[in-house]
Structures are given as structure tokens and as C-alpha cells.
């Protein structure tokens, strides 16, 4: 079975992100870029499906600038068979919907029965992409899945989505979109062999025109990024534990009115 895994290159979680000279974006100097962690769960799951079925193809795809190729290379090193790099001035600073349209168009061309996303990219934290792509394709979608099994006949998937207080397990006909939640699996490390083999695998460049897409304007516009308002300085409560706790509870009650 062919499985498409859209990924996004994002700053490492330990990055202290700073606002850039153009306040609509961040300062990218010195950033270590990684594949968004949730996308790694998606890729791992796709690789496991392929291994279980003993056949198939896992295709990683990203929309992003030139450096995003590194993210695709990581996916290839982990075991993806080939990659698509959607890179075009039309997609610079694109909003979710523009990216979703690009992904939907490339998915139509590739026609995989399953698209596995990470639940969200940890940069803009929008988390809209899987559902938006599903809707543009007219496919069903299960978000934040914690488990999945492809049916024997390869025509449907049983997937458990995480909702408040429960796991809802659906039978979903293919093609469909799934988005991976942490806990779905433990992603593998790439092996050295995988890394050395990655350069032999194809990364195909795709332009907007290849997908028949015109540049339409963003629907959601970033006005500016802002730093968080500083928190007022806190107070370390001194003294023996018993006294400190008494004082803490009094402060929470009387000063902060938090309880």
C-alpha cells in the first residue's frame, strides 16, 4: 500500500525562539531544524504498516524552503522510499489553507489510499492541516489517533482517536486521512545504513505550476509576532516546610484569591 506522510521542518523544541527583523516571522539564525515530532510518529506508523504488509511505498512530502530538504532526507534515512519537495515562491509565508491546497493537489496526483499526518506542527501549532486536507479531498479523517490497524483486504482502517476521556475506535473506508498523537508508537532512529542510503533515494521538486495551482492569497494573515508579557516577579516563601506551607495557603487564599 502506498502511504503518503506530509512532514514539516520546525525549530528544535529546545530552541529559544526570537522574533525576527520582520516581526511577522522568527529570527532563524542559529536554529537547529528538526522534523516536527508528531510527524515522526506518523512516519514511524507508515513504516510499520509497510513492514507488516511486506510491501508498499512510503512517500514523505513537505512544503517548505530549500533547507526543508534536510527534513526529507531524515525521513528517507528513517526508511521512507522517496520524497516530494513542494517548493515555490507561491508557498512562501503561506497560511494553512494555501499549504493544505498544495498538499491536497499532490495527494490527488499520487493517489495513495492513506495519508498519515502528525497531529500538528510544533511551530505555528495550528493543527489544522490534516482536517483541511481531508476536507479538500472529500475524505474521512480521524484526528489524534493512538492506534490503527489496516483491514486484511486493505479496504479500510480501524483507528482509535483520542477524545476527552475516551478512545473512539472507528472503521474508516480508505482512502482516508489520519493524524498521529504521541503514544501511537515510539519512532525509530535512522540507522547509519539508512543515512548512507538516503542520498540514493529520490527527492522530487514540485512547483505550484506542476500541480496546476495558481497563487491565491492567504486567508489568515499574520499581523505580528509578540513576546509574552512578562510575569510579575514571584516570591520564594522561606522557612521550615510546615510554616512555608501555611504561608503559601494563606497567600493563595487572601492575596491571590486563587482558592
Amino acid at each position, binding site marked *: 500500500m502506498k502511504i503518503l506522510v506530509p512532514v514539516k521542518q520546525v525549530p528544535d523544541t529546545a530552541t529559544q525562539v526570537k522574533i525576527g527583523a520582520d516581526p511577522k516571522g522568527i529570527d532563524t539564525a542559529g536554529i537547529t531544524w528538526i522534523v516536527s515530532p508528531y510527524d515522526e510518529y506518523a512516519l514511524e506508523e507508515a513504516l510499520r504498516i509497510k513492514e507488516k504488509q511486506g510491501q508498499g511505498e512510503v512517500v514523505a512530502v513537505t512544503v517548505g524552503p530549500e533547507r526543508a530538504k534536510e527534513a526529507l532526507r*531524515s525521513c528517507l534515512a528513517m526508511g521512507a522510499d522517496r520524497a516530494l519537495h513542494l517548493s515555490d515562491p507561491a508557498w512562501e509565508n503561506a497560511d494553512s489553507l494555501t499549504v493544505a491546497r498544495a498538499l491536497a493537489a499532490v495527494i490527488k496526483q499520487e493517489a495513495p489510499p492513506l495519508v498519515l499526518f502528525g497531529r500538528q506542527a510544533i511551530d505555528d501549532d495550528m493543527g489544522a492541516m490534516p482536517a483541511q486536507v481531508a476536507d479538500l479531498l472529500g475524505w474521512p479523517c480521524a484526528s489524534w489517533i493512538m492506534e490503527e490497524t489496516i483491514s486484511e483486504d486493505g479496504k479500510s482502517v480501524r483507528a482509535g482517536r483520542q477524545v476527552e476521556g475516551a478512545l473512539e475506535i472507528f472503521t474508516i473506508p480508505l482512502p482516508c486521512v489520519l493524524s498521529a498523537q504521541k503514544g501511537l508508537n515510539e519512532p525509530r532512529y535512522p540507522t*547509519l545504513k539508512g*543515512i548512507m542510503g538516503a542520498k540514493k533515494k529520490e527527492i522530487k521538486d514540485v512547483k505550484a505550476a506542476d500541480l496546476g495551482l495558481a497563487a491565491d492569497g492567504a486567508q489568515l494573515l499574520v499581523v505580528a509576532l509578540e513576546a509574552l508579557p512578562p510575569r510579575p516577579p514571584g516570591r520564594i516563601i522561606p522557612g521550615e516546610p510546615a510554616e512555608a506551607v501555611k504561608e503559601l495557603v494563606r497567600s493563595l487564599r487572601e492575596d491571590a484569591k486563587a482558592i
Partner: protein
Amino acid sequence: MQIELSEEQQMIQALAREFAEKEVKPVAALLDAEARFPHETVKRMGELGLMGIAVPEAYGGSGADTVAYVLALEEIAKACASHAVIMSVNNSLYCDPVLKYGTDEQRKKFLAPFASGQQIGCFALTEPQAGSDATNQHTLAVRDGDGYVLNGRKVFVTNGREAAVALVFAQTDPAKAHRGISAFLIERGTPGFLVPKVEDKLGIRASDTAEFVFEECRVRAANRLGEEGMGFKIAMGTLDGGRIGIAAQALGIAAGAFDLSVAYAKERKSFGVPIAQHQMVQWMLADMATAIEAARLLIWRAAALKDAGRPFGPEASMAKLFASEMAMKATTDAIQVHGGYGYIKEYQVERYFRDAKITQIYEGTSQIQKLIIARHVLGAR
């Protein structure tokens, strides 16, 4: 001149860093305290391809190069020097000579399972009376029909207890002195191959260091690596490569201690400010950073020469000499930055200090490295 790592080298470095950070670092202190061999993590290192980095894929290796090897080794050593030496011995002192001198049949049997990390190998050269003076081999291998019979002792064999196969050096023709030394691949379990003792050590305590005894130990001629009398050449050539590995291990030890020191200096306060703001601490950190970078460049250069198929022996010796002396100094200073806490096991930096010491000794002491370098500069080779 360009010093730029390839994309693959960077990815291998990143992989080793992540693996070391997540899976090796958390267990390092306990393994050290219990002097316990890390079977689990070494197995994982094998699966990832860290045990035969520069061995071609056809022989079970990863098909990368020596530069990738030292990058990975530095990262592993940053977390745990014991893991690093286990990895270094398997890569440099075992896989490398079997690849270089083995027949195709030997490579299949004695290389593939080792390069892929399913088994580990070791290198047995040193004898009780022959450390730095490796020409003085007393272990005898006497030709007997289609094989040899070995008698003798080997000491300080890293990976000795855990190895499935040992690369053993023995005298096949004592009359020819070191030109009469031959190399043998001897499987554990071969009758007469005994491992009577595992040493209790100052550092690299999670790696095992064993003593071997050979008593009427019969090995087939098919187990001889290279021609009769080539043993000394194999040993010396192998150690040249090994020294790059030990240099990278020393570098990693220093870099690990340095990272701990920087973090501590930013956190620890004295006289009302973090100690990192005191000039005397800054000087120590600046010296450490500079020496670490210098060692790294020496190591990368030696590794790149080896990858290019050019002579690299003196460069490997310089890298090993500089990196191991530097590691001892850097870890000493790292304890100093930590003050009294540096002397306490909880703060881990003392482990780096203990681990650093061996890098000045094994695979040629600092004194031997100086001898090699001096011979090279005086043109006396």
C-alpha cells in the same frame, strides 16, 4: 581549504548525539558504579550501525567513513567513555584489520556479524611483559599439521570477556623476532582458550578488560589473518587507526566534562554572581574550549587522511597524544570548576576525570606517541 562535514556525516553525528543523550547518558553513572557491561545499549548501537561504521555494507557494515566514525565516537564518549571504548575496539581494532587483511571467506565469517553489531570482537596484543614493547611477544603458535597450537598469556584485553572472536598475536617464528609474529582469529569456546580474570579498574568501568590464557589451544590455519610473519605489521597498522578512535574518545570525554562545567558555572553562585562571571573561571573554560577545538581538528584531519587513503600514522599519533593529554587536563579543570562538588560522584564530572586517564595509556602511551612523532619528524622511519 574547507572544513565542511557532508550531509551524511552531519546526520550520523546528530543520530549519535541523540542516541547518546537519550539512551547512554541516563545509564552511564550506574553502569560505572556497578562496573557492569552495557549489553542492552551495545546491542542497540549495533542495530544502528555504530559498530562497523566504515565497513562496507557488503560486509555488514554501514558504508560510512572514518570521519563519520570519529564524529559518532565523540558523541558516545561525551555520554559514556566505556561505551566509546567498546565501540572503538570493535570498529578500529577488530573490524578494520579483518576488512583489510581478511580473505573473502574470513570477511564473511569474522567480519559481517561483527560489523553489524550482532557480536563484538577484541584485540589481544599486550602481554604481561610486553606493553609498549610489543615486539617482545612470548605467546607461541607452533605449526602442527593443518593448524597451530597456541600457548601463552594476554592481558588488558578490552571487550575480552564479551567478545565472540579475539584477534590474537603470537610468535610463529621466534628466530625472526617481531618479523615472526602472526595474527589469529580465535573463537571463544575454542578448547584451551581461557578467560581467567576480568580487571577492576579506575575508569571505563562499564567496559570489561580481561586476561586471556592459551593452553594447548588449537586453531586452524584458516583462522590466521594475513600471511605468517605479517602479525606485527597488522598490529601496528591497526593501532594507527585505533589511535584516531581513542583520540575521539578522549575528545568526547573532554567535551562532556566541558559541557557539565559550563552548565555548572552558569548555575553556581559565589560572591553574589554565577561563577561563570569570575574571570578565573572564564579563563579555565576558554582554555578548555580552545584545547577541545584543537584536538577535534587534529582528529578530523587524521580521519580525513585515512579516508583519502593517504598515510596518516604520525597524524593519528599527534591526535591521540594531544587529545588524551588535553582530556586529562580538561577533566582536571572541570573538577576544579565544580569545586568540592566535582569530587562527589553525584556530579558525574569525577567519572570523566577517571575515564580520561586511560586514554593516555592504551593503544600506545603518550610516551610511545612522542616516540613515533619524533621518529617521523627526524626522518628515522
